[in-house]
Each structure stands twice: as C-alpha cells, then as structure tokens.
C-alpha cells in the first residue's frame, strides 16, 4: 500500500462516532451561535472526508477535533477556507511571476522550473485561520463562525521564498512582498491579496510549497502552490499563488488595510511596522494555545479506571515549554507529559493521566506555556473581528 492510501485510510479510522459537530461546546459557557450549530452539518467536498460545513460557497469547512489525534492532520481532513471561488489550475498552465519596484529584474517560472532551479526543503507547521474559535466569542461577532477546527498541522514541502526573491534580486526599496493567488472576487469587491514584511518573507522557513504531508496540495488547500508562513496566521499563506510583487510602499488593499486587524497594542507588537496605524495592527503571529483532543469533551469515563487525556499545544514559533493541567478549577496545576518535538512551528502532543475516584463530573483545564514566556489567557481578550481566542479550555467529563 502506498503512502497515499495510508493517508486516505487514516482519517477514516476516526469516523466512528467522535465526529459529531455537536461536540463543539466548551464547558466554560462558550458556545457557537444557534444558527451555526443548526447549519453546521457534516458534508464531504470531493476528495475530502466529511467535515463540518460552515458555508457551501465559498467553501468553508472545519476539521472535526477527533482528527487532531494525528500528529499531522490528514490532507483529506484538513480544513478549507476561501474568500471567493476556488480556482482550478492545471499544473502545466500555472506560472509564478516575481515583479515590482523592489526587485532588480522580473522573473516568471513554470511549476517545473521552480522545482528544478531551487533547493526543495520542508517544515512542519501549524496552519491556523485567524478566525479560529471566532464562533466561541461572547458576545458573538459576525464572520465565519468557526469552532476549534479551523486549523491543521502538516509537513509542508517546497522552495524557499527567500531563494526565489534573491534570484530576482532585491534592491534597497524593497519593503513588502505582496502575494496574490488565482482566486478572484465575484463582483467588484477587492481581490484577496496579502503582504509580508521583508524580514518574514526572507526567513528560511517561509516557503512556496507544492506538497503537504508528502502529497501534492489538494485544490482545496492551494494547488499547485501556496505560501507557507510558519508562525503567522493562515491569512498570509496565499493559496494557488501566482504573483509576488515586491513593493516599495505599504500595500493598502482591503484585506490588509481594513480586514484582519486587531486594536493597536492589545496583543503586543505586530512585527509588521509598515502596516501599523495609530488605531490598529495587522494580525500576525499565532498566540500560544492548546486543545483537549481525546477523550472528547463530554465523554463518559469509567470511575476508578485510569484514562489518558491527549491534547495538543502550539504557538507562533517559540515552541512549547510546558503544558499544565488542573482538575480543581485552577487552584493547583500539574505538568502534562509532552510528546515528541516535531519542530518549533509544529504543534506538540501532550498526555495527562486521570483516575477519578468519584462518580460525577470532572472538569479538566489545560494551559500551554510557550518558550518565549507567553501563556494562555484566563478570559477572552475581546476584539471586534474575533481573533486570537486562546482562553484556557475547561472540559467536562462524566464519571460513571
């Protein structure tokens, strides 16, 4: 059996009952809007497992939590997020154009040229939508009402953006790299275009990727090539990327200037000064976070028997230092056992054994601590667009 068959088979193993989209309620009173629960049915896009459908068109589909038992999220269970229609591009038709006032000479590459000319490399990294967990905001804010599943972890393989930019040659005017994909708006709305500061574009782990988890990117996830910007939220990971413009001034398109913004200073420095304003900053690095995966929240646990809780923890690239678990409402905390370190941008699995002696409800809290000293928050840092939800999770288990 080849690897593809294994990948396809792997997600099916989890389809045995933990996939209910109803398991999206956190014990802390946070829950999705009633209309999102009712319309969030399981639905399979071609080539994908049944995922939690948030919207049919454009397709926005969320990964059921049970798939996060895997260190890497199977491609066919990886969440899907588009602002407009999904482009269909043949590999042979696809071109990547490098241009703009910040480069010495323009370039255009075919799929084969790009792969042949530059060294292929890979990175394990979490891809998390800026709006992951937006649906759990209290009060609710408009937008795609994501639960916990607008994210995935994968091994991304491709060429370094840095190598490609340096082949075109950067001049002193280079300020931002502006990425555009083959998708286009239906009416006269703004094209989905995002920029990166030069320092982030030139990091060795920032890639133009062709593959995830050893397979070509599914069209739902950016075939034939997408940007991979480890540590930053997925809004920058332009799918079906076709144009990279090195600009000499801040890019002012709607999706940079107006959307994907957080109030200035609320979440620390953005690291993207050319896009900061007096009032706000672009959302950039992922905040430290964790998720309880198994047993699923609300599961029944046998009294007196040892049960192992599996979770994951991640941040924007400093790496996970520890995960602490509390069974007494936060009065005392004990360290969970961390799994293998698969790289600083990957999430890290953790395990914690519980053995409840009494029947009733056990409430488990989990808190991840990053190597840079950051930790999860105890209450929501409210912001109007519904970003950076990293509140310490509370999960109830029923002991019987």
């Amino acid at each position, binding site marked *: 059996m080849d690897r593809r068959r294994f990948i396809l*088979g792997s997600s099916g193993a989890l389809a045995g009952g933990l996939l209910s989209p109803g398991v999206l309620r956190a014990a802390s009173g946070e829950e999705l809007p009633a209309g999102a629960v009712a319309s969030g049915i399981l639905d*399979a896009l071609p080539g994908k497992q049944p995922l939690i459908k948030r919207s049919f068109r454009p397709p926005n589909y969320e990964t059921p939590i049970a798939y996060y038992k895997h260190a890497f999220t199977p491609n066919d269970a990886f969440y899907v997020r588009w602002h407009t229609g999904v482009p269909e591009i043949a590999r042979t038709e696809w071109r990547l154009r490098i241009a703009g006032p910040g480069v010495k000479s323009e370039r255009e590459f075919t799929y084969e040229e790009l792969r042949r000319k530059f060294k292929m490399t890979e990175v*394990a990294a979490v891809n998390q939508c800026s709006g992951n967990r937006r649906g759990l905001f209290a009060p609710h804010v408009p937008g795609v009402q994501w639960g916990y599943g607008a994210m995935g972890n994968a091994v991304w393989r491709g060429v370094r953006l840095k190598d490609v930019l340096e082949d075109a040659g950067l001049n002193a005017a280079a300020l931002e790299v502006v990425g555009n994909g083959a998708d286009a708006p239906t009416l006269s709305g703004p094209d989905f275009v995002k920029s990166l500061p030069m320092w982030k574009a030139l990091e060795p782990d920032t890639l133009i990727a062709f593959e995830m988890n050893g397979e070509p990117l599914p069209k739902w996830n950016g075939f034939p090539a997408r940007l991979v910007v480890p540590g930053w939220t997925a809004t920058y990971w332009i799918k079906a990327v076709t144009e990279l413009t090195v600009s000499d001034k801040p890019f002012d398109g709607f999706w940079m200037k107006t959307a994907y913004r957080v109030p200035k200073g609320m979440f620390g420095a953005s690291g993207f000064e050319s896009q900061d304003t007096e009032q706000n900053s672009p959302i950039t690095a992922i905040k430290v976070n964790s998720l309880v995966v198994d047993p699923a929240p609300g599961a029944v646990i046998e009294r007196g028997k040892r049960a192992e809780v599996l979770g994951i923890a991640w941040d924007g690239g400093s790496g996970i230092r520890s995960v602490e678990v509390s069974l007494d409402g936060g009065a005392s905390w004990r360290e969970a056992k961390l799994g293998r370190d698969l790289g600083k941008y990957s999430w890290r699995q953790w395990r914690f054994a519980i053995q409840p002696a009494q029947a009733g409800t056990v409430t488990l809290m989990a808190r991840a601590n990053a190597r840079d000293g950051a930790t999860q928050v105890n209450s929501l840092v409210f912001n109007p667009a519904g970003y950076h939800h990293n509140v310490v999770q509370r999960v109830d288990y029923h002991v019987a």
Partner: protein
Amino acid sequence: MSLKEALRGAILLAGVAAPALATAADETSLRLADGAGLERVQAYCSMCHSLDYILMNSPFQDKAGWEKTVNKMVKVMGAPLTAEDITSVVGYLDSHYGKESPPAASP
C-alpha cells in the same frame, strides 16, 4: 527522528475505511424563513455566497449589526442593491435572523 519518519508514524496509526457519513447536501438544500424581503435576499446575497452565511450568523446581530453587514456587502464587495433593496433586506434579516428572534431555521 526525521520529520518524514514522524509523518510516516502518524500515517501508520491508520485503520479501517471510512463509513459513509457524508451528507449529499449542497446549497440548494438551504431554506430561509418565508417573509417580506426573502426574494431580494435570495437574489442579491446569493450572487457571491451561499445563504448559510445568514443562518450561521444568527441570531445574535441586532438591526444595526445587520445594517453594517449589508452596507459592507454593498460598499466594499459591490453588491448591486438600491437604497430600497437595502431597507428590505435589512428588515428581513432583522425580523427573521435578528437578535430577539427564535433560533434560525436549519438547512
């Protein structure tokens, strides 16, 4: 241990084939509440997106909230609504999917 080995390990957790869980749904299965303004909602909103955007974003927006959303669709996204259309669409959304109304219809 290399990433490749770790990946293979993850994949080898694999098991049986997937049971048929998929619904055969598409956006034509979505049903919105009957009422004045529904035809305009169907005509204009579905130019760019399926109508589950409305269901999903309910029932927590008040009239001012829906007004803001509809204005964004017109001014930023280019939805071709007249002032009369906007009044009708906002009225419909507020009546059927506004903050005070009961939970929205399921698809």
